């Protein structure tokens, strides 16, 4: 298993995209820093940390979709999937190695964002408290859900573009529709899983979830249920597809 993980790591690390992603996060954090610094007085470390990480994490979601979609999509594009499937390792393990690496890669970027933002916040007034950090840490549930969703689409569709399109559409469109539905028919909106994926909402905007009569426990359960179902579908498809023209 470790050798499969090191393969996935090598394939990810050797492209240019990881550096682009890290560059984008740094740029966002710098932009937030510059904007706050240009205002009157010295900006607070807390609000800088909150805004800059939120901005960067929005991009993290997008990059996570791209990286995860490419983990399977590039194997199809380069026709290298056959070598993975010819390996004595089972298809289940090959798929699991991709899932685990997708999560690890996302977490690394997440930590990178937190560390860089924290570093800059040290130059500002005040200090970053646990109350600010906590919801940001919890918000990692969003990208984790995205990984499972993207992985499922990526074994269904051949083209990376289609996978990315579908995931973005599913993710953002249903959040918007769900958001509208909350005001109108909250009892229905409760069953839209995309409204539950970012668990930090219970810290940031608890009224929103209250309107739907949802609790943290329910959200965790409902998201976990989806994640498991997505993975079962993905594993089943990955096992049974021949991936031949």
């Amino acid at each position, binding site marked *: 298993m470790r050798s499969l993980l090191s393969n996935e790591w090598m394939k990810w690390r050797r492209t240019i995209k990881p550096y682009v992603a890290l560059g984008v996060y740094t740029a966002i954090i710098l932009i937030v820093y510059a904007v706050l610094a240009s205002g009157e007085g010295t900006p607070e470390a807390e609000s800088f940390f909150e805004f800059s990480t939120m901005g960067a994490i929005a991009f993290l979601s997008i990059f996570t979709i791209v990286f995860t979609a490419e983990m399977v999509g590039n194997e199809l594009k*380069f026709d*290298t999937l056959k070598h993975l499937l010819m390996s004595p390792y089972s298809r289940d393990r090959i798929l699991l190695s991709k899932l685990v690496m997708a999560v690890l890669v996302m977490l690394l970027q997440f930590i990178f964002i937190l560390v860089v933002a924290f570093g800059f916040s040290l130059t500002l007034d005040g200090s970053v408290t646990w109350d600010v950090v906590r919801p940001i840490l919890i918000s990692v549930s969003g990208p984790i859900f995205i990984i499972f969703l993207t992985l499922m689409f990526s074994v269904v569709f051949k083209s990376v573009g289609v996978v990315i399109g579908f995931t973005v559409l599913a993710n953002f469109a249903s959040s918007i529709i769900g958001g509208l539905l909350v005001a109108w028919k909250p009892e229905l909106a409760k069953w839209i899983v995309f409204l539950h994926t970012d668990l930090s909402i219970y810290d940031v905007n608890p009224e929103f979830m209250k309107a739907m009569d949802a609790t943290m426990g329910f959200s965790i359960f409902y998201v976990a249920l989806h994640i498991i179902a997505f993975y079962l579908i993905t594993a089943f498809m990955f096992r049974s597809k021949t991936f031949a023209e």
Partner: protein
Amino acid sequence: MLSVQNVHKKMGKATVLTNVSFDVIPGEIFGFLGPNGAGKTTTIRIITGLMPATHGTVTVDGYDVANNRQEALSRIGAIVENPAFYPYMTGRENLIHAMNLIPNLKKVDLNALGALVGLDGKLDMKVKQYSLGMKQRLGIARALLHNPKVLILDEPTNGLDPAGIADLRNYLRHLADHRGIAILISSHLLSEMELITDRFAIIDQGQIKSVEDGQTKADSVILCKVAKEQMNEALDVAALAFDDVKIVQQSAESFIVPRQETDIPVLLKQLIERDIAVYQIGMKHESLEEQFLKLTKKEGGTNNAFITQQ
């Protein structure tokens, strides 16, 4: 070493393979010959575990590919269709990737392996800078990385220049003779197969038409060319000399006698005694290609789709 027994494959309603059976023994180069779409790649996909057979078995060194996947596939090295690599990584990284796909593999000397396939000094180039021939070599290096007992090469000469093909041929011969690897090669390039294989199976429309020994593969006949106006006389002479075989007139000035090389002096002597002007006489070997066309044509085969390259 590699044994394919009664393999059937249905895809949807179409039957792609019918009762395909053959064995490849250690140290042998076995050819798998057929027009495009005959089922060569499907068979190879089944052998390499990429696709399940509808029924029938494939065993490698006694291990069943379907039931004992890890043991069976650890003994196979293969190039299926084109050699595919991660173009943005170096040859060395691609080989490391392949090493990591084999469980419990001991450390491999990649430089030695690179030198073996003629890629010394080029392993640290990105694969996108490789020529097709270099990719083929890297593909073979990858297939040999774990010392497989069975090597499977699907259309290995695609995109190689004549020198590259000759190199490959010698190299495969070396692997078969000195390391006892059982080698299965598929191709539609008949002339190439004739030179490279010990035995070959001809497959068309998903069925094995024949399995033949490379040594006795060519039917040989005597071809004789004489003056046009003496043709009838020459045919009479030949008919008298060899009354047990059918003599075939091939053109206005040549005819064929289905006899051995040792019969040439006999025929020549008789012709000269009758004052017939002989321009040419010798053995003509029916090429694999002619045999192949004969075999597949009989069954109303797919000769149109068949590409010959000399």
